[in-house]
């Protein structure tokens, strides 16, 4: 985010126990903007899905580091979630509902949730080197109907 007015960086091991902390911390950071409680819940879900993806798919049960960089500026929140895991072979397929590489644990709806609840989602992934997911959201009253 070019002219961010505030920023938060977190780095933690890819342990499931950290997912709740990550989503709560991002939601608390986002609360400096005028998000409704419903919107903060949506941000929590999106972060939870993205971090769960890194734990389950990125590192596949092995331990690595997950980095979250949050920024606010120009009335919008930007959250980047990065891992250095196996990466996504086919990003287009990863967006398909019910597509998952871990059928026992997931329904393949994680990215569907992220897309539904955030305004913008950008995924950059290199097979074998990791995944970066950037998502953006503005408070609903800031959005202009066209």
């Amino acid at each position, binding site marked *: 985010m070019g002219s961010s007015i505030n920023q938060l960086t977190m780095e933690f091991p890819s342990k*499931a*126990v*950290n*997912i*709740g902390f990550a*989503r709560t911390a991002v939601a608390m950071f986002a609360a400096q903007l005028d998000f409704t409680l*419903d919107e903060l*819940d949506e941000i*929590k*879900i999106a972060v*939870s*899905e993205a971090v*769960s993806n890194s*734990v*389950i798919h990125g590192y596949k049960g092995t331990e690595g580091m997950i980095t979250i960089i949050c920024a606010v500026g120009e009335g919008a929140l930007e959250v980047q979630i990065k891992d250095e895991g196996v990466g996504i072979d086919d990003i287009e397929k990863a967006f398909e509902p019910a597509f998952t590489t871990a059928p026992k*644990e*997931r*329904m393949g*709806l*994680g990215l*569907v*949730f992220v897309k*539904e609840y955030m305004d913008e989602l950008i995924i950059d992934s290199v097979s074998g080197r990791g995944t970066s997911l950037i998502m953006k959201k503005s408070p609903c009253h800031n959005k202009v109907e066209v």
Partner: protein
Amino acid sequence: MLKVKIAQNPPHVILALEGELDMATGSILEQVMEQIESRDLVDITFSLDGLNFIDSTGIGQLIGYYKVFAKRDIPVSIDNNNAEIEEILALIGVREIMGVG
């Protein structure tokens, strides 16, 4: 954190979930399910009114129980009056998969 209360014992089991159901807390529910799965069961209801967070992993776990117990002809349903949770269930189409009270 997740708390699972057995609000009604077998054979008509009601499990009241309080707190957060996600990848980190799913094992707490799994432990309770392991306690009851060998009992004589007629039906199982998950009450979600006390939940304040659920994600696709948590919903996937509930649907997983629905599928497992369907093989034993034991219906598994969700009782929910929580608007925030309801919105997430609707997004995933849980109503079409399981009964939602």
